[in-house]
């Protein structure tokens, strides 16, 4: 011990000095220009997940670019459950005026904090609760889903498409339904098989789900999850894939037929602008391709021109308001006619949809009482 003691003392001294230096209240007076609007983003995954969170982060960067008076911050990898409320609260305490919470599970914590900070604007993505100062926002991703379904339906040879899906919540069920409606429209024999990963972001599980599909004869893998892992698995097997969240071509260039993508930046800019102008009110934002918030990414080189033409034609119809994927007749998995010819699924029913259309192979875990 004799040799160690001086060392111990020195180390402890350094440690103490370090701690005190760390605690010293030397708030650097970084006065910002008065107009600065501080905007915070909370992500459920890493900001470079190649999918969902990255799409939001690109929206954040877009916002910074568009509005010079905006200053942004973000926290990534925030678990749903107890910790996220703290993170949201911290941003409020730090003087942030607009807070975007970008995962479904952040809904109730956002609501809780919103109650305590009436001066802060909260925007929650993909949920259904709102309050005086908390709005929610989402996009009609089912439109690009439908278009991607058209592409996949025409491109498949085995008529077996695998859909890697996260949770059996309406948002995802809607995506699968729209995708299948598209695929069925151009290819009545097609089957869309579903595997639930029960996670937004789990690259390992996503890849193994894709491999399961491929082993069973799938030649196209559609992803509804937050990472490109499933598409990379498809590329490795020499098959095709349909990306989600952002253009995934760079992750699997040989496989990606197209991707259904988000342009969150447009909405973020709109909200920040409104808050800045004092015109913001809490609402439920749910726009589609016509607003630009959702879109279909450029096609891969393997997609033939006639396929592109067909899809572009449909896209134009949707943009003109002449067509909606959820127009009747729609049959469900059991062959029952759910939506009659000439009828259309209402927004309310779309938001809560819990049944699969004809052509989907898979089940939704039993609904609640």
């Amino acid at each position, binding site marked *: 011990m004799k040799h160690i003691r001086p060392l111990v003392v020195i180390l402890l001294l350094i440690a103490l000095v370090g701690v005190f230096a760390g*605690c010293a209240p030397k708030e650097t007076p970084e006065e910002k220009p008065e107009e600065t609007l501080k905007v915070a983003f909370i992500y459920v995954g890493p900001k470079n997940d190649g999918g969902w969170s990255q799409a939001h982060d690109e929206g954040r960067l877009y916002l910074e670019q568009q509005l010079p008076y905006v200053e942004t911050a973000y926290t990534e990898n925030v678990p749903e459950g107890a910790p996220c409320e703290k993170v949201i609260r*911290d941003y409020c305490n730090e003087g942030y005026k607009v807070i975007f919470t970008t995962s479904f599970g952040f809904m109730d914590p956002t609501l809780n904090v919103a109650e305590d900070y009436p001066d802060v604007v909260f925007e929650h993505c993909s949920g259904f609760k709102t309050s005086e100062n908390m709005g929610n926002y989402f996009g009609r991703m089912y439109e690009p889903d439908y278009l991607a379904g058209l592409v996949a339906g025409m491109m498949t040879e085995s008529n077996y498409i695998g859909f890697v899906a996260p949770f059996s919540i309406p948002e995802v069920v809607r995506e699968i339904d729209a995708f299948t409606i598209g695929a069925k429209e151009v290819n009545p024999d097609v089957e869309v098989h579903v595997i639930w990963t029960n996670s937004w972001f789990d690259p390992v599980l996503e890849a193994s789900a894709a491999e399961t599909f491929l082993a069973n004869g799938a030649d196209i893998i559609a992803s509804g999850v937050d990472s490109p892992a499933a598409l990379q698995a498809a590329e490795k097997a020499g098959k095709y894939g349909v990306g989600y969240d952002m253009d995934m071509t760079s992750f699997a260039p040989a496989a990606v037929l197209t991707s259904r993508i988000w342009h969150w930046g447009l909405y973020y800019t709109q909200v920040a602008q409104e808050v800045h102008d004092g015109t913001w009110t809490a609402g439920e934002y749910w726009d589609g391709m016509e607003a630009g918030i959702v879109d279909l990414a450029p096609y891969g080189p393997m997609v033939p021109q006639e396929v592109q033409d067909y899809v572009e034609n449909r896209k134009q119809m949707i943009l003109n308001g002449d067509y909606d994927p959820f127009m009747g007749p729609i049959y469900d998995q059991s062959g029952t006619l759910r939506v009659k010819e000439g009828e259309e699924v209402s927004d309310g029913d779309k938001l809560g949809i819990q049944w699969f259309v004809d052509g989907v192979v898979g089940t939704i875990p039993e609904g*609640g009482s």
Partner: protein
Amino acid sequence: MLLFEKRENVSTKLKVAIPLISVFLGLVAGGIAILFTRTNPLIVYKALVKGAFSSVYTFSETLVVAIPLILISTGLIVAFKMNFWNIGAYGQYIIGAIFGSFFALSMPATMPRPLLLTIMCLAGILGGALWGLIPAALKAFWEVNEVISTLLLNYIALYILKYLMYGPWRNPASHGFPLSKPFELNAQLPRLLVHTRVHLGLIFGIIAVIIVYILIKKTKFGYEIRVIGENKRAARYGGINITKNIFIAMAISGGLAGLAGLAQLSGVIHMLQIEINPGYGYTAIIVAWLASLNPIIAMFVAVIFGGLEAGGYQIQMAIRVPFGIVGTIESAVLFFLLGGEILKKYRIRLRRNTS
């Protein structure tokens, strides 16, 4: 060259000094990693300390994380003391939360709050205890290794929770999302401090620490589990009923984990959902070990871990460092703490190599 020599016994001074030095070295190593992101480590650590301990509010958030860690690790200590490797606090936490939620969701909102909360806490304890008794029974009657059984039961618990959330307990008003109905006020644990999320669970934790401490140090049960933990054959020779003690220890261990799960729901989340942070069940294993299986020390270690988590988010916010940095710091500290264990076992001496 460096020589490693076995130590016969460890002095108290070393027992205190080694972890402190280890933590410090861990911070230095973490600091080097931070340097790679072109950030001053001192600023990062400042943000960490600030985010965890600088104000009533930040400290309260540290405590919010510490509450489940205290409850679970205290329970784990009971099992670990008798060499029963309960890796299943994760599952016991979930089942406790489910049991407690049952009453929160099915009792009328008019029920007196103290009554409902008492029922819920007892149900949480019961749920965790029952889940803990399964591996105890498997071990006692069929010699099934508890590491494996407790670990696998974690997955079963998680799938039970998922089943309930996608099935019978899903709130019809949640648009199909896997959430239960929110808990009414009478099912929410009271907050200890306004404008914070610190709830009554903290008091439960402190009481649990005191009880377990006395249980281990002073009672017949404590003596018996220590004997079993140190030497099972001697216990059998001394006529100690090992099976009975496994059951009691696992009931306590699981019960406290179950109470932690219930407290997290009733005190913080206020509804049942899929993500209820059962991962604390694993963190608590580390807490228990770093505390050398002493519940009082574990309480403080839990607060430090709570600070690490709470402050970790602050780092991201204050300084734009990648999230991985927080994990890197935590791992570096852990790595050096484990390395410090070697120092407890061996004496290291420096010698000029003359041979």
